[in-house]
């Protein structure tokens, strides 16, 4: 009921904002943005990278969406999109959406509840037309079916209550797809209802989107179009931005050390830092001796000097955290105070003390400076993986673990980890929505395809699904914190740090709001305008 009230208030607020005159914003102009690489496809449902979200989120709409003008994603910032309102039934297992009338797909066909049903069938894998990949199938395991109640109303039926479902539906990763367009076309020439129509895609070169003049949010978007130029070389794209060839960098593309360079070359540029909700973590194959011994895994966790990682890699800007993004930006993560009470999260003397204890554990297992534990530390062949892996190897040396860096071709990294063909590794994990149903279910439950370390603890599974059903927010928060502490104690996937990066734009670009607890939900671009 509480959620329904919030939904209704949000609906009113957005309806009001829809009709309010956009007195300050200027319409017109094409936003020029650089892209760091080639997006694998334009089909957001099939992908798990912001290389796709950033250019393509503006093509689509969701049923509900995180308010693009609010920096923090939470239940309170969910606003209507293709749905005008939503309500839960008394059992909290039926979520009914009233759909906006008169909305058209970019090809002119009308949007209806049938399209919502089709989208859910694609996500659940029950549609005749299959997605090539369905990375977030696990998000919707609790959905038992979708019913159309006429063309303008749809009900999502759940096996059990799941208050976090709305957040999953509000994510940039959950756009609505048209029934009449097949999955192959959605990958190459996507059709949506969003503020920008797909116009052209030259692989390795550019992507072009034009304003949807029939967009149902009157007056939006302000831009006539968006042009993305693909520039894989980082030095070139930063120089091009400094030379004024681009209005906006790719989201979170500028690292902490690089921002000084950008500001030196383009002093007028506006650069803002934000957490990426991407964690750098240690993965240990718990089936492979001697790492099947919990003491070894514990010692490795205790050997981590997280502050050293953060200082070296980001001049102190990155954050320590548990399984979920820490506060203040993170809504569910452990606070610094809570973390500091846990093994491996201390600072200064506490770290050295923990390292001393870790060393003793390893010595009790027969390892020494003369007879260290030889191990390959595997990581992906990308700088953001390799750099922390080198620091990790250095830190493990202090507890008699002699690591040798094994750089794995990026194409086979996940496959290698999934088949447990590694002993120790360093990995990065991005979370689409700052909600435990995304972060915990996706990465730590036994059956999840995206739990590629295959950490599996039935008790933790039970706790994760229990929090998912909990309606009381305070109770759910407490449950989630307990789970995170349990994951740390289990050395499930020790989180070393959460990254922070900059995005920069020219001063004439207005209306950019960087979302603080996800890089995947704020790329609709419908509120951005050019003050020229």
């Amino acid at each position, binding site marked *: 009921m509480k959620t329904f009230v919030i939904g209704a208030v949000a609906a009113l607020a957005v309806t009001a904002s829809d009709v309010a005159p956009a007195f300050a914003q200027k319409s017109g102009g094409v936003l020029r943005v650089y892209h760091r690489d*080639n997006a694998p496809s334009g089909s957001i449902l099939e992908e798990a990278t912001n290389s796709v979200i950033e250019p393509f989120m503006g093509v689509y709409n969701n049923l509900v969406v995180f308010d693009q003008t609010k920096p923090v994603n939470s239940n309170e910032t969910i606003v209507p999109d293709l749905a005008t309102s939503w309500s839960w039934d008394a059992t909290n297992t039926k979520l009914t959406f009233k759909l906006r009338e008169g909305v058209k797909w970019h090809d002119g066909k009308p949007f209806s509840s049938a399209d919502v049903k089709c989208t859910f069938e694609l996500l659940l894998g029950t549609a005749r037309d299959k997605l090539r990949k369905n990375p977030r199938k696990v998000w919707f395991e609790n959905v038992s079916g979708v019913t159309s109640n006429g063309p303008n109303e749809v009900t999502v039926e759940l096996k059990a209550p799941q208050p976090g479902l709305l957040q999953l539906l509000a994510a940039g990763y959950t756009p609505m797809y048209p029934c009449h367009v097949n999955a192959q076309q959605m990958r190459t020439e996507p059709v949506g209802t969003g503020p920008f129509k797909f116009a052209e895609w030259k692989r390795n070169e550019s992507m072009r989107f034009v304003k949807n003049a029939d967009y149902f949010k009157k007056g939006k978007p302000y831009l006539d179009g968006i042009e993305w130029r693909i*520039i894989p070389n980082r030095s070139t794209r930063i120089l091009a931005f400094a030379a004024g060839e681009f209005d906006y960098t790719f989201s979170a593309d500028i690292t902490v050390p690089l921002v000084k360079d950008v500001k030196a070359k383009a002093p007028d540029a506006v650069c803002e830092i934000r957490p990426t909700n991407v964690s750098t973590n240690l993965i240990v194959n718990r089936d492979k001796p001697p790492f099947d011994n919990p003491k070894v895994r514990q010692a490795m966790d205790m050997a981590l000097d997280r502050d050293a990682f953060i200082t070296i890699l980001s001049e102190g800007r990155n954050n320590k955290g548990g399984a979920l993004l820490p506060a203040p930006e993170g809504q569910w993560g452990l606070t610094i105070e809570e973390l500091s009470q846990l093994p491996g999260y201390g600072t200064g003397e506490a770290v050295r003390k923990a390292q001393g204890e870790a060393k003793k554990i390893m010595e009790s297992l027969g390892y020494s400076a003369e007879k260290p534990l030889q191990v390959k530390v595997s990581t992906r062949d990308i700088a953001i993986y390799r750099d922390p892996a080198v620091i990790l190897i250095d830190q493990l040396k202090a507890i008699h673990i002699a690591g040798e860096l094994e750089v794995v071709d990026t*194409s086979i990294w996940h496959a290698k980890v999934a088949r447990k063909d590694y002993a120790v590794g360093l990995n990065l994990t991005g979370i689409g929505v700052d909600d435990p149903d995304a972060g915990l279910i996706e990465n730590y439950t036994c059956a999840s395809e995206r739990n590629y370390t295959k950490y599996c603890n039935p008790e933790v599974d039970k706790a994760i699904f229990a929090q998912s059903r909990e309606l009381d927010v305070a109770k759910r928060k407490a449950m989630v914190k307990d789970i995170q502490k349990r994951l740390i104690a289990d050395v499930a996937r020790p989180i070393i740090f959460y990254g922070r990066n900059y995005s920069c734009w020219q001063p004439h670009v207005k209306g950019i709001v960087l979302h603080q607890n996800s890089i995947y939900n704020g790329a609709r671009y419908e509120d951005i305008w050019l003050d020229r």
Partner: protein
Amino acid sequence: MATYIIRRFFLMILTLIGMSILIFVMLRLVPGNISDILFDAAGMVNEADKARLEAELGLDKPIIVQYWTWISGLMTGDLGYAYVSEKPALDEILPRIPVTAKLALLALIFSVLIGVPLGVISAVKQDSILDYSLRVFSLSGLSLPSFWLALLILMAFVHYFGWIPIYTDKPASIWHEIGLLSIPALAVGFRASALIMRLTRSSMLEVLRQDYIRTARAKGASTASVNYNHALRNAVLPVITIIGIEAAFLIGGLIVTETVFNIPGVARFLVEAIRWRDYPIVQNLVMFIAVVTVVVNFLVDMAYVLLDPRIKYDD
């Protein structure tokens, strides 16, 4: 001569068949295929979906069947479909060839225009300050890494002119395009010109010591006539070979230049296709580069006959 040309033609065909097998096999020896990469991009692996995708793309068929499908398609002009863009491979490859060809041609023109005259001057003024300076110039051309030089050029342009000479928009005219391509072509041409210059110099030095040069001088021929008509014509043969090799290299070897200057050409596209294990694109592009190399080598051999009447390819 006719027999020689026919023999060379069949040798070219054999070479290309060998190349096609080599390309095909080597590509499949590289770990991972498109389905691995697509799933990796999604941060997950679903073995059943992966197998379905491999079957959809024909990757589950025996390697000989896959090879035959490719080669028989190639014979009929059907290059298959790109795995990533899901568009005909020909449509993806064709627009990129003119871009690289223009860049390669410009780079080659620059390298010849700079390399040959400076090589001749360096040889004629052997051991002078000018010769030493030109040798330092050529050595720097050979030793400066092209990515470093390219980045330096970009940084200089941004710093001094507030402009960056990269492909960010479609060129408005042919002159605009030539303007955009000239700077990267100069960066590439600098290295090639250094090579040509050194070869021209050493070749010229050898020729200038020949008896017929002395005879020409004794007959009262002008220095320019001796150097350019008598000496250079004979010294140019090894230079032509190098120009041929460079021309073939420039079609597929401009990876760094195309990447740094953001030129949407063949080489950058090839690297990206290799990264995605986009077999139809890689196979056909490498085959195209192989054809260019073989044809250019053949043309160079033919050029010898035109340039040196002593050379005859007897039947």
